[in-house]
């Protein structure tokens, strides 16, 4: 079960992912990112601080947006990941394909740098 909240801050869309993302709930994450892109946000920050679990279905959602966001020059930065969640990303080597920061200010800074 996952809850997704979106709020806007300094031109960035901040997507907070709360709970667990598995094959039954990954569609929620997909829809949230699609909305964010569709609404024309120039930066997407994904707050993972309340994300307790992610399976490959959720990882696949992030992966599937890499090319589109690159083409549209929209940086997406994930931040605040718990160690057990970060471990799932690192098992697959996704930490090198996605932009990941520790805190929200760091995520915003990285997004600003990537926007240039």
């Amino acid at each position: 079960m996952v809850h997704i909240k979106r709020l806007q801050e300094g031109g960035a869309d901040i997507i907070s992912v709360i709970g667990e993302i598995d094959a039954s709930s990954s569609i929620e994450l997909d829809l949230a990112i699609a909305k964010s892109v569709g609404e024309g946000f120039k930066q997407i920050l994904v707050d993972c601080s309340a994300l307790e679990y992610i399976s490959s279905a959720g990882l696949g959602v992030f992966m599937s947006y890499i090319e589109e966001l690159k083409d549209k020059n929209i940086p997406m930065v994930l931040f605040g990941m718990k160690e057990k969640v970060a471990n799932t990303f690192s098992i697959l080597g996704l930490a090198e394909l996605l932009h990941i920061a520790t805190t929200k200010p760091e995520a915003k800074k990285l997004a600003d740098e990537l926007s240039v």
Partner: protein
Amino acid sequence: MNYQYNIGCSLSNLKGIREFVRNSLKDQHVPEIEMSAIVLALDEMCSNLMIHAHHCNPDHMLELHIHIPVQGKFIFEIVDNGSVFNINEFHEPDLDNLVHQKRKGGLGIRLVKAIMDNVEYLKRDEKNVCRLTKIIK
């Protein structure tokens, strides 16, 4: 120590599978990072079977068995009657291809193989058994 859990092939049951695995191992002194990885691997295997072998039909059942013969060795078996979904026969797509093709699938198999020490398939009483082994020192 043996544990068993029977569950219908609905993706909404994955959470129950994760809780079962976690509860079964809670007294085994498994470090949290390893525990999370094991839970993830079982979720991946069960969701793959539910989707590809059972088309998410909740009337189709999976049996999940956990067997701990000696301390530090964990055997997980998923028993079903569906078509065999042998991940050892699947070519793992490389990450660059997945990104390029904007594919959302293909990562689960890679996770399971990275987490588990062995994945094998056998037949028992006319049923398919997928056996995953994990050693924790």
